[in-house]
Structures are given as C-alpha cells and as structure tokens.
C-alpha cells in the first residue's frame, strides 16, 4: 500500500490545515442530513492539499457516493445518466442520500466532454443531490459559471511545519531514522503539496533504515507542477534564475505560458526599456517555438523556455514593490468573441480558394479588395453567384443585402423601384448606425457611403446599359457577355417581387 493511502486521514480531525474549510464542509453535511438542501460545494485549491480526501471523508457521512473524475468521459449524457442512477435510489427524509463527487471540474474538456458543464448546472438547479466538486485552477474559465452557483471553499496549501510534523510521524511509524533538515527540505520542496511530500519520502525512505541528505539527490529533479499564474508572478517579480527555473515546471503548453508572460509584462514592468528588453526575449522565445515546430526538433523548446522565463525576468532593473493584477491574455477573449466571424471568414475563404486555385490564406489576403468590389451592386451579385456565397456569407463583404441587377428593358418598373430603394436605403442607414457594426472599416464611413451610393444609383443605370451594348460588339469577350445578359437575370420578375417584400 502506498504511504499516501496508508496515512490518508481517517476522519476530519486528521486532515492537516484548512480549519475553516473543514468546518464549512462539516456544517454542510449536517444540513443535508437534517433535511435541508444547501448549495453544492466547490473546493478550489492546488494539487495535494486534501480536496479529494475531504470529499471522500464527506462521502463517509452519506449512505453512498458516486465519483466522476477526469479519467472518465464527462459529456452531458454521461453525467446525467450517472447522476440519474443516484436519484433513482433516493429515499425520503434524505436518508440513503448519495453524494456526487465531481473531481477536476476545471478539466472538463470542451469538445470531448461536450455539455459537461451544462449537465452539472442542470443538476445544481434541480438540487436533489448533495454535490461536491473539486478544481485546481481558480482562474479557469470553465468553472466561472459554476462558481456563482456554488459555495466556493478555497483549500489552501498545507503549511511547511505541518508537513514536517506529518513526515516525522510517518518516519517513526515506518521505523526510518531521519535527519530533521532532510524532512524540512522535502516539505519545502513540495510547496504545500502534502501528497508529493509523502511520495518523495516514500521513494527515499521505503525499505531504508535511515535517510540522509544524499538521498535527496535522487529526487531533486522530480517535477513539481506549478500553477501558471504563480509562475508568471515569479518570472516578473524575481531575478533569481534558480527560483525562476523551478517556477517554470508547468504542464501547460509553452505557447500558452509565453502568451501569459507576454500579456503581463507591461502590467508589471513600467520602464520602456524594460518592456523593450523583455519583449526581445519574448520574440526569441517565439522564434525557437517556430523552429521547433517547423523542424519537429522539440529540443529547441529548452531555449524558448529560458528566454521567456529568465530572459524576461532579467530585463527589469529591479523588482517592483507593488501589487500588479495579472490577467489572462486579451487575445483569448478576442478569439472567442470573434469566433463566429472567423468561422465565416474561413468558410468564405474556402469557397473562394476553390474557385481561384489558391490556399485559404491567399484568398483571405484578397478580401479587402473583394470588399470594395462588393460595394458595387451589380458586381456583388455576380461575384456572389460565381463563388456561390449564401446571404449570410455576403455579409462579410457588405452590410446591405445584394439587390437583383435590373434588365435594361424594364425602365418603368425600375424607376418605381428607385423610389422604394432610396427609402429602404435610408432605413438601412439608420439601422446600421444603431446596430453594433460587424465590419470595422465602414464604421465611420457608413453614413456617407450609403448616401453616395444613392447618388450613384442613376449613373450606374446608364453605365450598365451602355456597357452591355458595347460588349456585344467586341469579339474578344466570347461567351462571357452573353452569360452576363442571361444567367443572373433569368427569373428576375419573381425576384423583383421578393425584393419588395424585403423589409
């Protein structure tokens, strides 16, 4: 049996630290057992501080419990089904209550665990079951919506002295002789992670009669995963390479770490040349990430890590004595906000790329010029049908709906339409002003453009008819001119009718 299991607390008293948190949990259990239904608990805190232990101790007070953790798939259906079993066996008077434990809720995956958070919210809303959830990362976006619905208990790191005391007790029970400073080092190195301290002790102590500082060498390189924001703080506050190196033991992707360090540089550093120097290091770090990706030689990552951590840290003249509020990168907010738009752009780029024998990237580079072309009603109509763009896709290039090109033979109806058109155009001008704009460029110009368009309308009319006559004369144009006369205007009567219905 692992020492972490063997010395697992058997009751609440044995749990180290977090006195207040323990009391709250005990009260919460009592409320359930006396027939109330208090809000679910959300235990938030770093790894190895006793969240799971506390939840399991709580489980002992109920008739039964069900646990879902990150190794299970936790989609909407799975969560509801599992919990559904719990509710089926629920009896009156809150006896035979099943506790539901959801571990690592911040790790519920966006795509694999689709609807997971929604399912949890539903269970909370129903409120039939005692529910305890655990999360490591208090900043996680995934649990933001849950936090408001729960009683959040923050579980803090265990104090070094408490850890030393426990390690001593274990050594005595296991009959291992120890030097006090070795246990102190183990405790300190664990940074409040009791579980990792016990694990480390077991590695060097199990089967040994005594442990010395030499044994420490063996586990000195053991990875201790830090919380990302603590690490960012260390990088920006410290100038001690050793401390910074320790802080960079993170499980996150290097590009993400770089993004967060970068985001917070100007929040911490105040002098311009510090920002410049720090960003120079950021740039190098990114360059090596790129090289690693392109060559698949991930050994380049180590340079990247050094630049983004020690490099950025040493860019400051001295440590600022202030509290700077660090933030998640605004890029992520922008990305999620603009998602629909980016998807649209991608879809349109795909259609255009296919027709013009290019990649999506090259197609996107032509967007600004296409946007100008789409301001011309006639051309917009033709391009939209050429690229087979749907109405909502056309919106990428112009805010107004495309109007049917008119046939030159129908002057009379056209004139009537002109009147209707200008009035709708005005209405639209108002609309575009009141509505938050989707297209940035036209923001200031929206009004002016629209008016210009109205004036141009009659001019264009003449131009269009003139053009058609001329083009038929030119032999070079082959079938294209015929096409332009026939194809888009086929059933123009019906389409014109529908035009009047539009708004």
């Amino acid at each position, binding site marked *: 049996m692992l020492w972490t299991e063997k010395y697992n607390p058997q009751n609440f008293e044995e749990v180290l630290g977090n006195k207040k948190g323990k009391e709250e949990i005990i009260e919460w259990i009592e409320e359930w057992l006396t027939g109330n239904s208090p809000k679910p608990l959300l235990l938030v805190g770093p790894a190895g501080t006793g969240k799971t232990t506390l939840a399991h101790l709580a489980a002992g007070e109920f008739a039964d419990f069900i646990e879902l953790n990150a190794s299970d798939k936790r989609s909407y259906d799975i969560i509801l089904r599992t919990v559904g079993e719990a509710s089926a066996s629920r009896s009156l008077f809150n006896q035979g209550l099943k506790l539901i434990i959801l571990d690592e809720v911040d790790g519920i995956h966006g795509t694999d665990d689709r609807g997971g958070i929604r399912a949890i919210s539903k269970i909370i809303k129903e409120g039939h079951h005692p529910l305890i959830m655990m999360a490591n990362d208090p900043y996680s976006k995934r649990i933001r919506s849950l936090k408001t619905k729960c009683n959040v208990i923050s579980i803090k790191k265990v104090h070094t002295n408490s850890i030393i005391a426990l390690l001593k007790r274990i050594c005595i029970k296991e009959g291992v002789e120890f030097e006090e400073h070795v246990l102190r080092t183990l405790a300190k190195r664990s940074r409040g992670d009791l579980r990792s301290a016990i694990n480390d002790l077991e590695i060097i102590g199990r089967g040994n009669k005594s442990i010395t500082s030499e044994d420490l060498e063996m586990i000195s390189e053991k990875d201790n995963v830090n919380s990302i924001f603590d690490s960012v703080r260390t990088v920006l506050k410290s100038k001690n390479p050793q401390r910074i190196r320790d802080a960079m033991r993170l499980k996150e992707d290097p590009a993400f770490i770089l*993004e967060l360090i970068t985001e917070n540089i*100007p929040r911490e550093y105040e002098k311009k040349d510090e920002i410049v120097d720090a960003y120079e290091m950021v740039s190098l770090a990114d360059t090596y990430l790129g090289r690693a990706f392109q060559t698949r030689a991930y050994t380049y990552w180590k340079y990247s890590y050094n630049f983004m951590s020690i490099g950025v840290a040493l860019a400051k003249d001295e440590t600022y004595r202030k509290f700077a509020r660090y933030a998640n990168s*605004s890029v992520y907010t*922008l990305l999620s906000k603009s998602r629909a738009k980016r998807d649209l752009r991608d879809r349109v780029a795909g259609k255009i790329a296919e027709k013009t024998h290019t*990649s999506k990237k*090259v197609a996107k580079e032509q967007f600004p010029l296409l946007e100008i072309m789409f301001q011309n009603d006639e051309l917009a109509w033709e*391009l939209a049908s*050429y690229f087979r763009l749907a109405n909502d896709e056309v919106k990428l290039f112009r805010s107004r709906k495309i109007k049917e090109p008119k046939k030159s033979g129908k002057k009379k109806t056209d004139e009537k339409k002109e009147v209707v058109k200008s009035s709708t155009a005005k209405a639209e001008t108002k609309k575009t002003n009141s509505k938050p704009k989707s297209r940035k460029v036209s923001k200031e110009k929206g009004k002016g453009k629209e008016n210009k368009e109205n004036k141009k309308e009659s*001019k264009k009319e003449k131009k269009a008819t003139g053009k058609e006559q001329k083009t038929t004369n030119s032999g070079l144009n082959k079938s294209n001119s015929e096409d332009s006369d026939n194809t888009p205007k086929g059933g123009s009567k019906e389409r014109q009718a529908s035009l009047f219905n539009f708004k």
Partner: protein
Amino acid sequence: MNEPWVEKYRPQTLDEVVGQDHIIQRLERYVKEGSMPNLMFTGPAGVGKTTTALALGKEVLGEYWRQNFLELNASDARGIDTVRKDIKSFCRLKAVGAPFRIIFLDEVDNMTKDAQHALRREMEMYTKTSSFILSCNYSSKIIDPIQSRCAIFRFAPVKGHHIIKRLEKIAKVENVKYTAGALESIVYFAEGDMRRAVNILQASSSMGEEITDESVHEVVSKAKPQDVRKMVNMALDGDFLGARDLLREIMVVQGTSGEDMVTQIYQEVSRMSIEGLLKGSVYIDLIQSIGEYDYRIREGSNPRIQLEALLTKFLLKTQEE
C-alpha cells in the same frame, strides 16, 4: 456573367503566360516531347506559378487533362495523411487518355519537414505513372531530397510593363476607361503580383466609370487595415498597452495576416519619413527592426507575438515636432 477577372483572364495556355519567358520556353519543350520530370515552381505570390502549372497540365495531358490532373493545396489539406491518401488513390490508377498523371501540390513550403519526407516517398513510389508539380514561395523551406528530385524553376516578380500590357488588354475587353497614369499606379502598388494588380483593377473599375490615379489610390488605401498609422503613433507616444490592444484588434478580429501587418507598418513608417515626421536616424533604426521582425515572423510560431515585440521598438523613438 461576370467572373472575378483574376479567373476570367487567367491564361489558359502556356504562351499566354506573361513575364516568365525563359521558363515557358523550357516547359513548351516538355509539351513537345510529351513527358516531363518532377517540377518545382518557386517564387513570390501572384507571379503565375499556379497558372503555369494548370496550363502546362492542359497542354501535356491533352483532352482528358481534367481526369489526370490532381490539384491539392498543401496548406489547407488537413495534415499529411489526407494529402497522402488523396495522392495514393489518385496515383494508383493508370492514366487514361493521357501519357501520365500530374499531381499539382501548392504551397509545399507550408508543410512540416515530416510531411515533406512523407511526400518524398510518395514521389518515389509513383515515378512511373505520375509527375509532380510542386509550388512554393521559398525553396529554402523545402527539404533537400525533394529539391534534388525536381527541376526547379524560379519565377520572378512580373515586370511592370508586362503587368501594364495585361491590364490594358483586360480593360479593353471589359470596356473600362482609364486615365493616363492610372495603370502605372496599379503596377506600383501590385509590386510584381499579377493577381493583386488585376484585383486592384477590378476593384477600381467597380467604383466608377473611369479608373483614375485617384480611384486607384482610394482602393489601395481602403483595402489596407485602417488603424495601422494610429497604432504606430500610439507606440511612438509611449502608449504601449493601447498600441498592443489595437494590434490585437486588427489581427485577431479583422483577420489581417502577420505578413500584411509588417508590410503595412513598413509603408506607414516610410510615409512618415517622407512627410518629415521621423528623423533620418530614427527612421533607419525602425526599418532595421521591421526587417528583422519580418524575418522572425517567418521563423517564429506566432506572428502576433513578434509584431507586439516590434511595437516595443517604437517606444524608445519619438516623432519630429
């Protein structure tokens, strides 16, 4: 019906392709001989790599070129596996109605080294039945084994007079009037990129009856990200957070690419220098930084981070009063 002019006037035969005479001559020899080695077309955007590949395919393969010509875009295809699967199922069948089959792979330089090695094996496997045409912007990003298996053709940016000739022809067919000098300014902004030139021409003609120097300028200034000057000014005034937010807005929300951004920044800085807003030494320092970061964008993993770093270089500089 009016197509986008870039497609409507895309040369359909090799002798229509302009500005790449030496290359075309050699390719026409392949057509005559009815066979060709693996080819690699390198060169900047819009110089005719794809057009040439399509035209060559049609002429070499003849009437049934469509069935025997596979066009793949390496940068869009999802990973090497799709590419390989597509190539495999295409190459497995013998060419019907044509001497062999052609696989045209665009933007190969966007493939990872691993994917390129996989591609190399495909190339070896099907040498008897198929020929490859690869195209890329930078041949330096292509692994040596692939380069050594290809006849490499370097496409140069299209010369100004070639572009003008082409634009004149299009304008004539489309019955578009233009003032003297209008086409010259299109050439100036196109920088040897025929696709861009034709798109500017069509955009300008969509704005009014006659293309003028002014309408071309209007198109080009409308078509570029609007806030770059503002962003540069903020950075020069020391407002880094403001400038950075604007950069993120332009890139993430408006979707401007890193390469476009660096070009825009370069152009704004040049313009400011011409307007006398930057001291000579400040100007040349900034150009040095811009050049360096242009390079790092290509080397690095995240263009936006590199551009943020470039913006910091403006913090220590000031404008002339």
